[in-house]
Each structure stands twice: as C-alpha cells, then as structure tokens.
C-alpha cells in the first residue's frame, strides 16, 4: 500500500472524533468541515434564491400579471435580494473556499479561532432562519427590496423586524469570519512564508477580511436604527420628525458598497489561482496583483454615493463620488491585464476550471464597463432604477462571484472530496449556464437603456420581445445549473479517485493528499520558494 493511498484513507471526512453522526459535523471545529457546512447551507439558499429569480422572470415574460400580483412581486424581489446578497454571495467564497483552503494554503493546521469559526456558521444559520421566518410571520412578507430604504421600511405594515434582525445576525457572522481570517493570516503562516510568498487567494481573503471587519458594523448599526424607527419612532430617517431618508441611504451604502468588494475580491483571488495553474506559469505581476487587491478594498470605502446619484445629494457630493468611482476601475483593470498576460506564452491546459475563469473574465469585463457607464453622472440620470442596473450587477456579481464560485468548485473539488468529476458533463453544464446567462441578462442592458424600470411586475408592450428572450435565457441557465450540480453530486459517489495534484498546481494544498488529513500537514512545511514556482 503506497504511503499516499494510506494517507488518503485517513482523512478529515472519515475521521472519528468525539461526536458521532451528524453531530460530528455540526459540532466540528475543523475548518474543512465548517467549510462544507457552509457549502451545504449556501448551496441550498442559492437554489431557493435562484428559483425565486426563475419565478420572477416567468412573471415578466409578458406584461401585466402573469403568475402573481404586484405585491407578491415586491415580496419576491425582496426575498431574492436578501437571500442572494446576505446569504449567498457575501458569505460565498470566503465561507466555503476560504474556510477550507486558507489554512492549508498558508501551511497552517486550522484558523486562529476554530470555535469562533463554528459560531460564525451558527450565526449564519440563525440569520437565514430569521429571514425565512419573516416570510410567514404576521403581516405579510417584507416588500421593501433588500435595501430596506427608509421611510417605507419603517412605515410598511408588512413584517420587517425578523428580516432586518436576520440581516443583522448575518452581518455578525461575516464580521467574525473576517476577523478569524485576518488573525490567521497574520499569525499562522508556515515558517518561511513571508507576506510576499503567500498565494493570491489568501491575499484576497486578507483584503476581504478588512472590508468584512470594518464595513459590516455600519450596516449593523443602520439596521438597528431601522428597528428603532419601527419600534420607538426615534425619527432618524423620518422626515416628519426632522430625519433625512437620504441619510439612511448614506449609511446603508457605506456598508453595501464595500460589500460588493467582499463578493468580488475572493473571486479574483480564486481566478488568479486557476489561471496560474492551468497556464502552468507564475502569475504575471504578482506584486501588482496584491497592490490591486488592497487598492480596491481601500478605494471601495469612499464611493458609496454612486448608488444615490439621483436621490438628492449636493453637487459636490455627486462630483466627488463619480470621480472616486472611476478610480476603482484602475486596479480592477490591472488585474484583468495581468490575468491575460499570465496566459500569454503559458502552457495552457484546457480544463473545466480554466473555462470558468475565461468566462469570468468575459462577463466581469462587461459588468465592469457597464459600471463605468453607471458611474457617469449624466448617464446615471437616465439609467438609474432601470434594468440596465439589474444587468450591471448580475453581470458583475453573478458573473463575477458566481462564475468564480463554480470555477473554484471545479478546481478544488478533487482536493475537497478526493474524487474527479465527469469533465464532459461539467463542460456541457458550463456552456448551457454561460449561454443562458448571456441570454438572460444581455437584453436587460437594452431594455434598461430604452427605459424599462426595475422592480416593476408590469411593463409597457414595447419591452415585451426583450423580456421573452430574457426569460427563456433563465430556463437555459437553470438547466445548465442543474447539470453542473447533478454532475458534481454524482461524482461524490462514483467519481474516479483523485491524486494529490491532479492539475499540476504549485500551491501548498496540492502537496497534501486528496482528501486532506484532519491536521492538514503531517509535518509543518517550511517555505523557501514563491507561491507559483513553475520552472
């Protein structure tokens, strides 16, 4: 029996610890198991959120009421937004792949605070439970949109408190995860792994951790203020009491804009890993990639006002926010150039994760360019609150974080499960998913430009054709998603056994067995080389 085979048989999945059965999972402080707990939860809520989206698109296939009335549509897009934003893409990559891979990629045995890591997951489950409860408690589901804008959010008679409090709890989960990762990266890197020898995925989690830590409390206090408005009538955002609803928007977006960097930075980190591995080449401009991650995180704090260009801010605020918004595109562009340069003259291995990475770059660029258009004050007046915005953020969040999530899933699947999946079906799924995605969201740019408002269940007949195409795209996307997930799930049982390094990667996770042993490393590694040492 070869040592590797023996090692892979004693791994974190079949490890027999203090607890048995399901308790060995929900009481586990092993970062790998916690990563999978998150994967299970997040995937479940993603499917719920996606189904809500599918139904919303079905409503929009024709003008007028198709399968629901206006109030229901409001409840649908509210829940769709809350689930997708707070329960899927914000935790997303950090909670699943960060938890699983971060300690391994820096040569550590676990995160800095394993019990707090488990607490993060408990808080996550509590938060989403509260959000779901809001659908069934009392006075009708929340109908404010995921943005909870004042004054409607404290005037609506629909149930708001469980959803608002649920989002608060989810924020706390995010803070603790960020805190944990920051301390882990500062204190637990293997000997010899200096900051500039750390791979880009951990670097991206580092930049993200600062945003999670420093931005999330703002939404925490803002949501508490909404609770205060609803219950105590404190008047912070109530114009009849002297409050300013626009201040709510300021506070809300002071978090929610940095939040989109929580979504995209780990995605960029994962894409860097994938592109380097499948180009068999070190990342081009490693230091600039790090600087860009940190620059995006930093500049991202100061540009929240671009969500409020038409709300009534002063001219000075408008110019300031628009100018700063354009700045953040620069480091993002640097990253795209460096990914392409990495591929240039590399020895490309066309595998499923690499296809996802290429699809990512394509949709991310479209999303990014449309963001620049929205960031221009004059254009924004025309495009705000139209489907153009909907297209923009789906391209950049679903296209960006979503595609990177699937890419990461296909990249690290062998490591996590010890199995290989069927590549043919994975690629078929990807193609359907990609084509469906473009068909679903592409027309929305045009529809928005022509004036179709967002968050409306009805529209003028002139938008009908574009909506039919878009809705059909949602069916293709959903089928692609089904194939992808079924393919990965069946690989869990019937997939070929994976070796330590099926892709020829150079980062530390590829030096240990698939699946990894409980303690990750039999001996603490000593690092002497850079992270992408292809020669």
């Amino acid at each position, binding site marked *: 029996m070869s040592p590797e085979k023996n090692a892979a048989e004693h791994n974190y999945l079949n490890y027999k610890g203090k607890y048995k059965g399901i308790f060995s999972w929900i009481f586990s402080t092993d970062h790998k198991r916690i990563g999978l707990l998150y994967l299970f939860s997040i995937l479940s809520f993603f499917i719920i959120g996606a189904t809500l989206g599918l139904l919303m698109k079905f409503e929009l296939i024709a003008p007028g009421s198709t399968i629901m009335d206006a109030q229901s549509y409001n409840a649908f897009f509210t829940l769709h937004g809350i689930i997708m934003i707070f329960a899927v893409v914000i935790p997303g990559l950090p909670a699943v792949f960060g938890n699983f891979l971060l300690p391994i990629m820096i040569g550590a045995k676990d995160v800095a605070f394993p019990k707090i890591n488990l607490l993060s997951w408990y808080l996550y489950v509590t938060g989403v439970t509260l959000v779901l409860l809001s659908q069934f408690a009392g006075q009708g589901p929340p109908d404010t949109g995921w943005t909870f804008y004042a004054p409607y959010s404290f005037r609506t008679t629909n149930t708001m408190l469980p959803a608002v409090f649920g989002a608060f709890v989810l924020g706390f989960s995010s803070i603790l995860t960020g*805190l944990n990762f920051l301390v882990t990266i500062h204190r637990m890197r293997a000997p010899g792994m200096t900051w500039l020898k750390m791979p880009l995925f951990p670097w991206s989690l580092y930049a993200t951790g600062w945003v999670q830590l420093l*931005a999330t409390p703002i939404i925490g206090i803002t949501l508490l203020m909404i609770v205060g408005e609803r219950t105590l009538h404190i*008047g912070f955002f109530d114009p009849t009491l002297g409050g300013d609803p626009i201040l709510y928007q300021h506070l809300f977006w002071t978090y929610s804009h940095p939040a989109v960097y929580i979504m995209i930075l780990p995605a960029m980190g994962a894409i860097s890993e994938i592109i380097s591995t499948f180009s068999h080449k070190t990342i081009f401009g490693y230091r600039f990639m790090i600087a860009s991650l940190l620059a995006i995180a930093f500049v991202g704090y100061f540009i929240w006002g671009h969500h409020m260009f038409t709300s009534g801010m002063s001219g000075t605020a408008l110019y300031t926010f628009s100018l700063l918004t354009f700045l953040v595109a620069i480091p993002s562009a640097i990253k795209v150039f460096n990914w392409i340069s990495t591929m240039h003259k590399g020895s490309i291995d066309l595998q499923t994760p690499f296809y996802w990475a290429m699809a990512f770059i394509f949709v991310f660029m479209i999303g990014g360019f449309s963001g620049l258009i929205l960031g221009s004050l004059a254009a924004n007046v025309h495009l705000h609150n139209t489907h153009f915005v909907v297209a923009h953020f789906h391209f950049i969040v679903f296209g960006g974080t979503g595609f990177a999530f699937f890419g990461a899933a296909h990249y690290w699947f062998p490591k996590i499960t010890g199995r290989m999946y069927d590549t043919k079906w994975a690629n078929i799924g990807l193609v359907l998913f990609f084509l469906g995605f473009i068909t679903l969201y592409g027309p929305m740019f045009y529809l928005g430009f022509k004036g179709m408002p967002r968050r409306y269940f009805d529209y003028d007949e002139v938008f009908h054709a574009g909506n039919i195409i878009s809705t059909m795209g949602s069916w293709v996307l959903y089928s692609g998603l089904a194939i992808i997930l079924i393919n990965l799930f069946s690989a869990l049982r019937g997939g070929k056994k994976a070796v330590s390094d099926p892709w020829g990667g150079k980062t530390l996770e590829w030096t240990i067995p698939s699946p990894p042993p409980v303690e990750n490393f*039999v001996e603490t590694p000593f690092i002497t080389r850079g992270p992408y040492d292809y020669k």
Partner: protein
Amino acid sequence: MNTHAYIHRDDLTSKTGMWLFLFTEMLLFGGLFVVYSVYRFRNPLAFHMAAGELSVFIGTLNTVILLTSSATIAMSVTAMQKQNKKLTLLLLGITILLGVAFLVNKYFEWGGHIREHIYPGSSVLALRGQGDVLFYGLYYFMTGLHALHIVIGLVFIGFITVFVFINKVNTENFVLLENSGLYWHLVDLIWIFLFPLFYLIT
C-alpha cells in the same frame, strides 16, 4: 507525529483578535457619530439648547466614574503580573462596582427625562420641534447602546473575576484579563466622546 501543534497558547493571537473586535465596535458607534454630525450640522441651535437641559453634574460624575474604573482594571493587570491575587480581585471588584454606579446614575438621569415625557415617540417631544426630537433620539440611542455595552463589559469582567478566583486566569495565563480590560477601556473611550457631544455643547 504532532497532530496538535496549534494547541499551544498564543497570547498575541488572542490579543490581536480582541483588538480587531474593538475596531468593529469603533465602527459600530462610528455610524452613530455620522448621524450625530449630520443632524448637529442641520440643527445647531436646537442641539445647543437641548444639551442645556442635561445635567452636567451627572455627566461629569459618570465620566469620572468610568475613568476611575478604567484605572482600576488597568491596575488589576499590574496586580496580576505582580502575583498579587487578592489585590487583583479587589481591583476587579471595584471596577464592577463603579460600572454599576454608572448604570445607576444613568437610570436616574433617564428616569428624570422620562418623567417629563421626553422619550422617543412621545408626543411631548414631537411638539418641541424636530431638532429636539433628533437630539433626544440620538441621546437615548447612543447612551443606550453605550449602556448596553457597559452591561456586556460587566458580565465579561464578572466572568474573569471568577476565573481569577479559581485560578483559571493566573500570572502564567492572564490574556483573558487583559482582553476584558481592553473591552472596558473601549467602553470608556466611547463615553469620553459622548460626554462632550451631549453635555458640553451649550
């Protein structure tokens, strides 16, 4: 084969975690300072007049109480380092008593206002004008959230006091005591800013 290499205690890691948590608390209150800044800017006279209704005496007394409690918990760390368990426990006890005194003062202060029907949502307050509504809304919300943090801090220090008593926290291992001190100091820091912004803008 060492399967538990990370079990060995790392105080710097623990302290780093606590500091990062303190940053989140700073940002949490920071959001409220944003609200304060905006509404103070928009209602300078109303804020000025309403602040005159607060008791500078109680505010100053509470400030001194909190500063002293910060000193006593800082001294308790020194006592621990000097292996003086009795003094550590005494100082921790005084810290807790001072914290409770702060809350008692707050109770009487708020009680006074509430008796005059000055509280969020009251019609009396609404009739006084928007600036007053915002001032008192911020007053109750910010000092209320701060008082909640005092309670949390006291619970935390309470646990640590017990741990010191049963030697779970001792001269070889007192990072938990330091961390509880850091939390308490943060609560003091927030009050250091709340005090002038509500009591001294007359």
